[in-house]
């Protein structure tokens, strides 16, 4: 399967002092797919991304990006040539103008796409002659995105791309992501914006406290995650519903709410065996999946 994956990590760990930021992470990111990396603040997303790019040294474990060992300095340099990265804090030189920044960055890469540079400059309405340190947060984000999108990498790793962007700019960002993906670029991006992830992602990974809790395709999530609301004349014991696929059960009075990641039909069956008065099945959106997963942990 390694050939089909652009990122693979095995038992990747990172300690900052005694704080364990990433706890034995097994991650695989598929080629030619858009993979979203979700998690609360401090879940370990940025640390993981920095380990992939050789900016932070793992405490233990291994990983490859595009088949190259991330902990080998030489191989890591090689892989970074083939990866475009947008950092969370969008570091830029404040004393340069927008135009100087683009010219400066362009000189480092032989895969630069002048057509995309031109199109994004137009879409983003960036002021060419303003100094970077006078730009708003959203403008800085746009400039950082332009610098990554205008390359022709095999893989894009984007940390929080939508930070500070207005809805129109987010629309442009998603369009650019989709366009690059259609050209065969694999995309790995972290985001807090559930609604945009839900549209555009093929695969979703949810990280919490340095561990991967969910790794599933959006199709699977849509098809199998269900919330089943039950009403009984007398409530059966909760353990009767703790079957495979059931993630959480909440009860209140004669009502029971079952949150299942699969196997909803078995839950419904069980509910009928216990003579449920009412059975309601509803699909679960990514937002609820995220909250339930993260809170339940």
């Amino acid at each position, binding site marked *: 399967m390694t050939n089909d994956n652009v990122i693979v990590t095995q038992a990747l760990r990172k300690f900052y002092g005694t704080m364990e930021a990433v706890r034995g992470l097994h991650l695989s990111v598929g080629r*030619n*797919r*858009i993979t979203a990396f979700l998690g609360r603040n401090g879940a370990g997303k940025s640390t993981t991304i920095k380990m992939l790019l050789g900016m932070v040294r793992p405490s233990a474990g291994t990983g490859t990006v595009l088949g190259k060992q991330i902990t080998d300095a030489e191989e890591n340099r090689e892989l970074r040539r083939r990866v475009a990265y947008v950092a969370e804090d969008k570091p830029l030189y404040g004393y340069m103008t927008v135009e100087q920044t683009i010219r400066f960055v362009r000189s480092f890469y032989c895969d630069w796409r002048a057509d995309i540079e031109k199109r994004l400059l137009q879409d983003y309405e960036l002021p060419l002659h303003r100094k970077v340190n006078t730009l708003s947060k959203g403008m800085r984000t746009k400039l950082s995105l332009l610098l990554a999108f205008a390359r022709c990498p095999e893989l894009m790793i984007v940390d929080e791309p939508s930070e500070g962007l207005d809805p129109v700019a987010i*629309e442009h960002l*998603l*369009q650019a992501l*989709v*366009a690059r*993906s*259609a*050209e065969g670029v694999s995309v790995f991006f972290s985001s807090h914006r559930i*609604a945009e992830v*839900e*549209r*555009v*992602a*093929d695969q979703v990974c949810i990280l919490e406290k340095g561990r991967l809790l969910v790794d599933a395709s*959006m*199709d699977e999530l*849509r*098809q199998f*995650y*269900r919330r089943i609301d039950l009403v009984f004349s007398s409530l059966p014991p909760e353990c009767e519903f703790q079957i495979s696929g059931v993630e959480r059960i909440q009860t209140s009075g004669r009502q029971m709410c079952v949150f299942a990641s699969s196997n*909803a*039909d078995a839950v*419904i*069956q069980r509910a*009928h065996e216990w003579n449920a008065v009412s*059975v*309601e*099945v*509803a*699909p*679960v*959106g*990514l937002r609820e999946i995220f909250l339930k997963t993260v809170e339940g942990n």
Partner: protein
Amino acid sequence: MFLKLTPTTGQPLYLQLMQQIRHAAETGALKDGDQLPGIRTLAEELLVSPNTVVKAYSELEHEGLLELRHGSGAFVCVKRRTRSLADQMQDARRRIRDLIERLRDDGLLEEEIRRAFEAELLYPAEVVRKR
């Protein structure tokens, strides 16, 4: 053709896309020989992963509703079967309309009817048969 996907419902986007294209062919909004947008164009327009469009197109090709010509795009091929399906759909809608009318007469509210329909649709087929 106007396509509209709902990311929050419990149905994969490629299935939604397939249904809407099928529906457009059944109602005649899409005619035999019509060309659909390219994968990249449609993905950008709908803001979904290109893989979603690829999957929908190739499944529809498998069903015989689309013909994918390499390099030149996707073309609709409507057969006779689709026509009779259009009649079937019209008939189904008529029956559903009647049923809803009766439920309204029984005093059920719009929202309650909607919930009942959605709940029944989400029941797995085997469970329904056993009931």
